[in-house]
């Protein structure tokens, strides 16, 4: 901005966007990959989004323009390959026909019943963003201002929610049986379960649970999966003996989770896994991952 103004080409107007608000509208913090945070309103699919923008002319100089427009954009961004970016949603409204702005102006906008199928998301490689964009088109440079908002879409409770149960082991060394009460969790849920040690011939010193996020970008052969551990939780200290049963109670609240996303606009999927990790006295780690389905029960 500084550079453009030096050239005399700088924007000569500031745009402020404000979404309509009522007391009940919930907000959330949006984190980006650099952990910058900002507050944003939360919307759901098919909600109307209205607001206004204020245009302040700099030094009270009037500007000529070829029209002022508001766009509602939903897009999937790839952090590493912009070519993969996709605007899956673009809604436009003309706010002003081409002309000259000679004084500060306020324009109102409204998008009715917008289809916003995908939730806002900030993952490992991709993110899903929604924002309102105001553009003042000029022949020598368009003035733009974005205003991000968040879309969360609570879903109905899954019909089935079975236990997760599994026997795993290393032959002649370790044989455990674990069980989680459910396979599907809300984002503030508690993972309850237990681990039963049928055979222990290695010197275990610790057991942890971890929540792992796996993000698959692309499809078919070109797809690529990345994973990250979101949280670790110690569930056992010391070595169990044969026959021991260790309880698990893991509060998911407080972990930065999203629902499980499957094939978002054919671009990516995000899945979550519970990973049970055993650490032996020589710091070798043995683990078993189990996918869990996360869903949003409410905003």
């Amino acid at each position, binding site marked *: 901005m500084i550079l453009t103004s030096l050239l005399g080409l700088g924007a000569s107007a500031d745009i402020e966007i404000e979404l309509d608000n009522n007391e009940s509208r919930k907000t959330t913090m949006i984190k980006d990959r650099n952990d910058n945070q900002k507050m944003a309103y939360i919307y759901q699919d098919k909600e109307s989004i209205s607001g206004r923008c204020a245009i302040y002319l700099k030094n009270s100089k009037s500007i000529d323009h070829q029209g002022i427009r508001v766009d509602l954009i939903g897009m999937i961004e790839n952090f590493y390959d912009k070519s993969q970016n996709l605007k899956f949603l673009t809604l436009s409204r003309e706010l002003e026909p081409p002309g000259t702005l000679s004084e500060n102006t306020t324009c109102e906008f409204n998008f009715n019943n917008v289809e916003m199928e995908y939730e806002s998301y900030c993952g490992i490689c991709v993110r899903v963003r929604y924002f309102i964009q105001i553009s003042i088109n000029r022949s020598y440079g368009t003035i733009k201002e974005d205003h991000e908002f968040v879309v969360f879409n609570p879903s109905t409770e899954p019909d089935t929610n079975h236990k997760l149960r599994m026997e795993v082991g290393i032959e002649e060394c370790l044989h455990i049986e674990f069980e989680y009460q459910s396979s599907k969790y809300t984002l503030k849920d508690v993972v309850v379960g237990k681990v039963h040690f049928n055979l222990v011939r290695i010197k275990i*010193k610790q057991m942890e649970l971890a929540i792992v996020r796996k993000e698959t970008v692309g499809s078919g052969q070109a797809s690529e999966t990345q994973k990250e551990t979101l*949280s*670790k*939780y*110690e*569930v*056992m*200290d*010391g*070595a*169990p*003996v044969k026959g*021991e*049963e*260790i*309880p698990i*109670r893991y*509060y998911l*609240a*407080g972990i930065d989770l999203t629902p499980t996303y499957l094939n978002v606009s054919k671009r990516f999927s995000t899945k979550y896994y519970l990973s049970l990790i055993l650490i032996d006295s020589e710091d070798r780690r043995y683990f078993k991952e189990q996918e869990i389905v996360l869903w949003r029960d409410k905003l």
Partner: protein
Amino acid sequence: MEADQERYLEEAVTVVREQAYFMKQNLDQNSLREALKHSSNMLQELRTDLLSPRNYFSLYMTVFDELIFLESHFLEERKNGRKMADLYESVQHASHIIPRLYLMITVGSAYIKTKEAKASYVLKDLLDMVKGVQHPIRGLFLRFYMLKTMKDLLPDRDNEFEDDENDVTDSIEFILRNFKEMNRLWIRLQYMSSQKDDYKKEEEREELKTTVGENIERLRNLEGLTADLYQKQVLPNILETLIVCEDVMSHQFLIECVINSFPDEYHLLTLQPLLEGISKLHKDVDIKTTIITLLDRLSEVAGTSEVSIFKVVQKYVEEVFIRFNSKIESNLVIQVSLLNFAIKCYPGELEYINSILESSVNLIKKSRLEKLSPESMRLLVKLLSIPLDTLSLKILEMPQYPQLLKYMAYGGRRTVSLRIVKAVFKSKRKLDNQDIINQLLSFIEPLLKDDEEMEEEPESYEFEEEQQSVSKLIHLIYNEDLDVYYELLQLIKKEITQGGEKRMRYTLPSFIFNLFKYIYLLDDCISLNSKAEAGSPTDVYEEEVEDLGPIPKLPSVTIPKVFNQINELLQEITTPYPDITLRLYCQAAQVIDRVYNKEEQLEEFAYDFISDSLTVFQDELSDSDEKLRAIKLIVSTLSHLECFDQQNYETLSDNAAQYCNKLLKKPDQCDSLIVASHMFVHKKYENGESLRKCFARCLKIANSAMKDPENLSLLIRILNKYINYFMTGVEQITAGDINKLIELINEHIKQITEDGKRDKVKACIKFFENTIEALRKKKKENQATFENIIVE
């Protein structure tokens, strides 16, 4: 290593203090989230692997104090409207298990105190969750913390946490489950320990035992723990936990906790299962301590039980002997304890005591040891002396007693035997039948004869004490029936004579005196019978006879038979102990003098006794003083005897006087003859001729012995004897004899004075003056008799 430990501890404590400081600061500023973060940091220190159990305990205590502060703050938070349920959840977000669980317990305590949740809900939840800590030390302390924190929050009879759904059974369940887990952790410590040294490992475990014991302590402090709950729920559970774990230290410590913690009455009630449990403990448990402790406790209450519990106890004790790898010493210690128990609780049950002795015999037999250890010996002494001290002679009714006694070393056997003997005569129990005597003799056999084990002669003073004690025992033998009495004496006689002469020296005189006593009884009995026979029912004796009760039956034993035995016995000790023999001969002769008129033939015995005594005097004695004493005793005895006919008497008295004459020293001859003179003023057989000869001899010797002026006393003694005889009317002694002798003595005194030796014989002169003074007095009182005696 130790230095490292100190450093680790110091570092950890520093962090704890620092974090606690921030925690408190944040609490003051009402910043709970931050405070929890710091308390969690503080608790992180308890995750350490570096500290020894002891140092971990120090660290734990430091943390504990801070947690108390935190908990009290939670209660404050409640007043500010914060829900404990939320707090309880929020502390569970902590990612590390140790801080998480300590905080859960801390909040949990506030949770219960505020009554926001039911105690049993929180207790159960905590109990589940603490399972996550499987590390022995960290787990033990965590659970210890839980016990301590929940101490006053357990639902109990009539306390504020009891209601329709929560009662003491929940608390019992909670503690029992925790106990089981803690015991497992404690046992596991030995496999986890960083120590290589087994001993050190054991030591580390020892240091932690009280944390496990805390569970028992909690159970015992429950007001609502009734005998019924104890019997049905608590004890079976504890025992199961113990038996399953098969761990020596755990068994050792915890069974003692159980025994020591719960009331004696409960043990009585659960005796069978408790003993059953004990008998299944690990074979290497030092079972004796356990059993002794239990017996001590039981002995306080066994009396309250209507049924004797001894048999049950003994049955399991026997099982314990079979099962456990205990040394014979340990088993004997148990026996001692069982014995004390039996005696204290069932003093009348001799069979119990006997069976303990029998079982001890079996234990020793089974041990197949060539030689018992000194410790075993010491215990054996206890097993034998405890019944003796408490039941005294009832031990004689225990056939196993001498069986056990056999296993003692010779010295010990003698000690015990001596104590038995002393107990017998302290009890003054009459030994009135063969059984008791035979039993007693078998019990004290070590005192009665030499033993193959006897390597050297016992110390003489010990031997003397033993034998004198045995000799006292003889005085207790008695039976009204004189034939039976005699048989009893014969039993003893056999034993005494088998003891050899060195024992007979002590025991025989007592036995002989008892025979004397026996003779008198026999004599009384015979005279009663003869009187009864002689008299008709209207006889003058009737009254007398009635006074003495029914006439005893005439025994078959005769007086001569007894004297015959006395004679035989004395023959046996004549050579080794002539002095004693001689005195007993003289005594025997005196006995005959009392009874001879019933059995004329006894004179022969008396004759033999006196002549034997003279033979002993002549053949066996050598010391001149001893000989003087002996002959004086014989002649004085003889002078009193009236049982002889004249001829026999004269033969004996002449012989005796001859022996006096043959004494080595002249003054001794004189001295003895003065006494012998009495033989010739005998009641029945006065012999003036011999008396005159006797004094002539005396005067001659005394006069000729005056080279030594001290022999003047002989003359004065003769004078005194003269006065005696004169007064009693012996006609051979005249006033003239006395006057002449006084004159003679005066001359000698004059001579001695002239020789300047008067000082040497001061005592003699005093003796003379006393004699003259007495004479003067007698004359004054009895002018007629003493008329012709001249006293200056």
